[in-house]
Every structure is written in C-alpha cells, then in structure tokens.
C-alpha cells in the first residue's frame, strides 16, 4: 500500500518533468486559440452566433469559395502528378537519379513564399521568359489567356511546393506495393491498366486520400506566396484575415475571430482526416 502510493507520487513527479513543454503548448497554442473560440462565440459575454452571421457577407463567402477551389485544384493536381512522378522515381533502376530527385523533392517542399512567387513572375509574368518563348511560337498568354497574378497563376505557383510534398508522402506507399502482387495479377490475365485499377489503386487509396487532405490544408493555410504574387487582388481567406489583422482588428476583432474559426474548422477536418487515414495506412502495411 505504502509502496503503491510512493510509486504513484513518483509517476506524478515524473510528469512534472514535462511541465515546461506543456506550459509552452498551453501558453502559445491552446490559450490563444481558445481566446479566438470564446470571442467568436460571444458578444459582451453573452453566447451568440452573430459574428458568424456577419462573416457571411458576399465578399467573405467568395473568399472561402476561392480558397477552397484553389486548395482543391492544387491538391488534386498535386496528388495526380505527384503520384506519377513518384512512381517514375521508385521504378527507375538508376540509383543516382532516384536519390537526386528525392533530394530535390526534399529541398523544394518547404520552399514557398516570396522568393517562389518572385521566381514565377520572372518565368511566367507578362514579360517572363516562358511568356516570351510562347509568344515566339504564336501563343499569347497575356492579356487574356493566362495571368500569373491571378488564381490560375497561384495554382501553378502552389504546385511548386505541392508536387514535392505529395512525392515524399506517397513514395513509402509505392514502395509497399509488392512486385509479386503485380506478377500475380498479370499471370491471372490482368492488363497493366486493370492491375492499376483493381489492385494498386485500392491499396494506395488511403495514402492518396490522406495526401489530398494534407495538400489541401497546406494550400488553404498559405499566405506569403499569394500575397507576394497577387497582393490584395485575389480574394482568399488568409488574405482577408491578414488584412483584418493589419488594419481592422482594433475596430472589429470578433469578425476576424469568426473568420479565423471557420478556417480553423476546415483545417482541423483536413489534418484530423489525414491523421486517421495515416493510422489506417500504417496498420494496413503491417
């Protein structure tokens, strides 16, 4: 009995060793976010949904539609092309090519923001080098077909960090596809297309869906690239929230809080879904 309680107090003391970390997390993650939750749901201390109603103006609704479309488009393209490139990487026999391109994906996946946006202006801006090259062969991007300073342009720029992220996420799953499965399918008379549709893709499905969710969240929360490339011209959720933070928080903080809560809701769904699918994929692999 005495021993048990001593043991108990020792575990309790051991938990104290984690206190600095938990204090940090509570002070800079939990409490600030809870402040937003409370403020967005109350008015002078009384529970209300009025801030969310106020957030449903056409401008803010459009910002959510734009953000969701941009995130869905870049996540979808990222998943499709990322998986194709990753497949090319894992099936290549040249070890150097495989390592070098994986390293390139590693390097570029965290790369975004201002330098990236600027690089795309140099390449695809109205006087960019690719724009000029295309003009030479008779394709005029500007002023009507394509603008880098628009949602189309952002889609291309976002792919620069979405593709490598998907490649890194899906490579382990592609490596998990056993050669015997393919051979078995082919021996049973399946065509390569049938093998992909009936065997490989169903096995890869959780990783692909998880990848889609993580890429979606990655694009939905992005701000620096969009701001550098398009300034206030493109109406995205993060651009709206940033504008409120810079100028109008003092005037109408609860409105900013409500917008932030809505975007947190979207992000949480994505990240929680990714975690859940990731857990399933790992269990499946075992």
């Amino acid at each position, binding site marked *: 009995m005495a021993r048990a309680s001593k043991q108990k107090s020792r575990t309790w003391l051991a938990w104290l060793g984690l206190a600095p970390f938990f204090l940090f997390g509570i002070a800079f993650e939990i409490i600030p976010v809870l402040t937003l939750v409370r403020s967005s749901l109350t008015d002078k201390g009384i529970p209300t949904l009025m801030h969310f109603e106020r957030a449903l103006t056409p401008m803010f609704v459009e910002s959510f539609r734009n953000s969701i479309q941009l995130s869905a488009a870049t996540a979808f393209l990222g998943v499709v092309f990322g998986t194709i490139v990753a497949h090319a990487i894992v099936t290549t026999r040249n070890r150097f090519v495989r390592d070098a391109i994986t390293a390139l994906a590693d390097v570029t996946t965290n790369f975004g923001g201002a330098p990236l946006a600027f690089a795309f202006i140099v390449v695809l801006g109205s006087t960019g080098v690719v724009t000029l090259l295309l003009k030479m062969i008779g394709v005029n991007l500007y002023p009507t077909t394509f603008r880098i300073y628009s949602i189309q342009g952002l889609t291309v720029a976002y792919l*620069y960090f979405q593709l490598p992220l998907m490649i890194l996420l899906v490579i382990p799953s592609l490596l998990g596809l056993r050669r015997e499965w393919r051979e078995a399918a082919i021996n049973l008379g399946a065509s390569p297309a049938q093998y992909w549709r009936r065997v490989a893709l169903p096995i890869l499905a959780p990783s692909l869906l998880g990848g889609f969710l993580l890429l979606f969240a990655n694009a939905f929360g992005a701000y620096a690239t969009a701001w550098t490339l398009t300034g206030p011209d493109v109406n995205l959720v993060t651009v709206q929230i940033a504008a409120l933070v810079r100028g109008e928080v003092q005037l109408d903080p609860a409105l900013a809080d409500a917008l932030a809560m809505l975007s947190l809701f979207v992000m949480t769904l994505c990240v*929680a879904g990714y975690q859940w699918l990731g857990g399933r994929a790992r269990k499946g692999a075992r």
Partner: protein
Amino acid sequence: MKNDRGIWRVIVLALFLTFMIVPFLATVLFSISVRWDRTIFPEGLTLEWWDKVTSRSAFETTLTNSFIVSFATMFALALLVTPTAYWAHIRVPRGKPFIEFLTIIPFGIPGVVLALALIRFYSTVPLPLINTPNILVAACMVIALPFMYRPVANALDAIDIHVLTEAAQSLGAGLWQTMWRVIVPNIMPGIVSGCLLVFSTVFAEFTLANLLVGTRFKTFPIYLVEFTRFDGRQASALAVISFVVAWLTSLLIIWIAGRGGRPAEALGAR
C-alpha cells in the same frame, strides 16, 4: 515494350526537373541581366543589381534580424524539445500522445490565424511580448515545433535509451550527466537535422514576421517582398539569396541523414 516504358519515365522525370529548376535558374539569370523583358536572352550581363541591393544598410539589418530570429528559435526549441522527448521516452511514455498532439496542432493552424490568436490574447496580458521580436520567436517556435520533435523522437526510438540510461546510472552518472554525456551525443544527428529544418523554416518565414512585428523588426523576407513591388531586378538578387540559403540548409540535412544511416528516417517530411 521495355524501351517504351523507359521513355515514359524519362519524359516524366525531365518535365518534373524542368518545372522545379527553371524558376530558380531564371531568377539567377534575371538578377545578373542588364535587361531581360523584351528578348528571349538577356541584353547583357551585369552585377549592378547585386551591388546596389547589398550595399544598402537595410540589407545587413534585415539579414541579421532573420539570423537572430532563426537561431533564437532553433536554440530555444532544441533546449525545450530534447529533454522533454528524452524524459517522455524514458519515464513518462503515457505523456507521449499529449506531446504529439501539441506537435500536430501547428499543422492545423494557418500562419495568419496563429498571428491573430497571439495578438488577441497577448495584447491583454502585461508581458513584454506583443510587438516585440519575442512574440515572433514564440510564434516561430510553434510552427517549427513538429520539425524539431519528429527527428529527435525518431532518433530516440532508433537507439536503446533504456539500456544506455541504466548503464550510465549503474556507473554512477546522475540524470543530467546521463542526458548530456550519453543520450545527447547518441541522438546528435536527429537534433542537428531538427535544428536545420527549424532554421530553414524560420529563415523563410514571412507571414508571422509581417503580421506580428512588421516594420518594427524587419526580417529578410519582408525586405524581399518590399522590393518585389519596387525594383524587380534587385528583388531577384534577394530571392536568389533566399533560394541558396534554403537549398544549402536542406542539402546539409540530407548529407547528415545519409552519413548517419539510421537518422535518414529522422527527416521531418518522411
């Protein structure tokens, strides 16, 4: 048949490489071109833009500020995360899910929302945080937390910390000695990988710096964004510097991971 497949692979990889490398090369060339907006090739080469942009005093100030924030975040996170991860692994395994929860949260908070949340709460608290570099470092610690924790936790998983700890203690080492003299050297590749990932993340961080401190403590990315509106050719030189810093840090991470063998898994993205 075999040849066909090979060609398919070469085309896919070549297109991918082109897409990833051309923006970088074009920016480099643009920064040393006299003029490059009317012709396919630059109209002559010059170092004028590099000279101009690096001779401003703001160049040095913002670069220094970015290094200060990056190093402060890196050291603070290493000191916070390493002992915590070790302690949780050896004594409080049941605390791990809570720690992991706190390291996943940053993925779900957009930078703009984190900035808003910190401003909203800390402007009501009498601490020397709001509008100072301190709050920027705290915010950077939040977003970089997963990049520090994952490699360190993976490195701890990869060695037998229980045997090492017991061996050290049976030889008379205290807790601190065990940690600094035995555990830390064994998980060093993980810690260094984490530090480098943190460094490259924070060095390129624009959103938090812009919203939390803005012009009061200008960082390098803020300086770069100002130039993109004002002089493209000088901005391109700054963009090249950012590219190079990010690439060098990442190559260093890959090199360390490759050398250690095991800590290859320590890379955050895997």
